């Protein structure tokens, strides 16, 4: 019932099976980069990746051939431009074709909420006048039994495993999140198993009252992992490395430069600590 405290390698090995549906959530803030890199290191395959904003970490997993399908609502490099590896997969099937399950933010948020509530579908007043439903059979309509109005419906998202990054957990596995949370909490509660990497493991969480806490008995595993959101950020711990996001555009633009970078920095490092040390070395 209580959360296990594991190393990242153990957690990914235990909970991310080939073919699983996996949501690494966190909206710009608290993106679980370390977990994504470990998935790449362990060469997981055929994953159904789920995430509102794929961001660099999904660009990396897609480019390294981990994914067969992507459920998403906005796939860019925020403030910079394209995710070149995502584009290459969709436009040219490299390194393998990628099936898309594409939504709007509002639709995907409704799907995560339904998942968290264990309802079979979510609804919204949305998708009117757009071509998305024509290309996604997962966007349907439902009639209000009181007014007759037709609303948009999306199936609940219930990932096999959701992975978050958070600022802290206590030793029982209670997890506390401060700051921008996106749909992370709903993705967490929607998951069959929840894994959370954290900046620090503490004896007792600060008093939360109305703050965001995931209680230990909904958490499958807690993984201590300093800097686990870098180059995204952890409010109160370190800032977003906007320059890295800008650099990524050049790294990922070509297959060769992408592969070389991943080989050296992710496959070539033992863990996230070694990854960060390599970057620091380069910066020095």
């Amino acid at each position: 019932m209580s959360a296990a405290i594991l190393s990242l390698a153990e957690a990914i090995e235990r909970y991310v099976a080939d073919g699983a549906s996996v949501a690494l959530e966190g909206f710009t803030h608290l993106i679980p980069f370390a977990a994504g890199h470990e998935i790449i290191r362990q060469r997981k395959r055929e994953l159904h990746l789920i995430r509102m904003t794929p961001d660099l970490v999904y660009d990396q997993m897609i480019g390294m051939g981990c994914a067969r399908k992507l459920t998403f609502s906005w796939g860019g490099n925020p403030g910079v431009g394209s995710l070149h590896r995502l584009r290459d997969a969709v436009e040219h099937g490299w390194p393998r074709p990628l099936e898309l399950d594409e939504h709007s933010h509002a639709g995907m948020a409704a799907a995560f909420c339904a998942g968290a509530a264990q309802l079979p579908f979510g609804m919204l007043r949305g998708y009117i006048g757009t071509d998305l439903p024509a290309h996604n059979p997962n966007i349907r309509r439902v009639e209000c039994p009181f007014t007759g109005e037709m609303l948009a419906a999306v199936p609940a998202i219930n990932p096999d495993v959701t992975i978050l990054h958070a600022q802290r957990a206590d030793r029982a596995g209670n997890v506390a999140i401060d700051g921008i949370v996106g749909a992370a909490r709903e993705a967490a509660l929607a998951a069959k198993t929840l894994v959370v990497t954290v900046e620090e493991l503490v004896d007792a969480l600060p008093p939360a009252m109305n703050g965001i806490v995931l209680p230990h008995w909904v958490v499958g595993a807690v993984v201590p992992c300093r800097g686990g959101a870098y180059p995204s950020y952890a409010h109160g711990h370190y800032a977003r490395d906007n320059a890295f996001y800008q650099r990524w555009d050049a790294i990922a633009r070509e297959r060769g430069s992408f592969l070389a970078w991943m080989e050296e920095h992710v496959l070539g490092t033992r863990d996230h600590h070694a990854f960060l040390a390599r970057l620091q070395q380069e910066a020095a």
Partner: protein
Amino acid sequence: MSACTRDEWMTVAAARLLRDRSVCFVGIGLPSAACNLARLTHAPEIVLIYESGTIGTRPQVLPLSIGDGELAETAACVVPLPEVFSYYLQAGRIDVGFLGAAQIDRHGNLNSTVIGPYGAPKTRLPGAGGAPEIALHARQVFVMARATKRSFVERLDFRTSAGYLDGHGARARLGAAGGGPRAVITDFGMLAPHPQSEELQLVALFADASVEEARAAVGWPLGVADRIDTIAAPTALELDTLRALNARTREAHARPVRIPL
């Protein structure tokens, strides 16, 4: 103000459209600059909401991403993203939504999904994000996009979000609650929907732009309003404020980040 760029002019023109105390759903890029310029000049009580869940935020520098820490730190509160979309946007509490797009058509419909066929795209774009429901629910939408014949097109490759659909009231008949794209701010001036046909037509030009320039940049035969306003050049205050904001932003984003080892 001779050296003012068209991006600056667009930003200033958009900022001027924003009334004090209005509630704006802000996207990254020019809209974010325009909203914050308005806040720092004539609209100090404007309410800015970013889809990351930051409500009433007052950033000192422009965010690079929609979820920069700066937005959370200066917000009245931070709510989960599903609430932003259901309790705020869908609930009709947004006065102004900003959208950009890779393609726009004559009725203000937007494409940010794909160039070419959806199943075999020539260029895969980032996709919808918040756009379909912003387009639907905001009381009015302002579109900001530089114009070329490849972006202001006769026919969208994909309709990501609804403007006036085929015009002549089609949007309202479909039950969209918001007012649709009331203004398109582009790099020669501004387009707005014709009251009956709801086709975008030229309603204002930057002081140094011409109807010919506008027509050359638009991929459909551009209609022109009976009266074309002139958008005055940015004032010294506007330009100074915007440039200071951009300078602060560049400086902040260039500051090296400590790797969290």
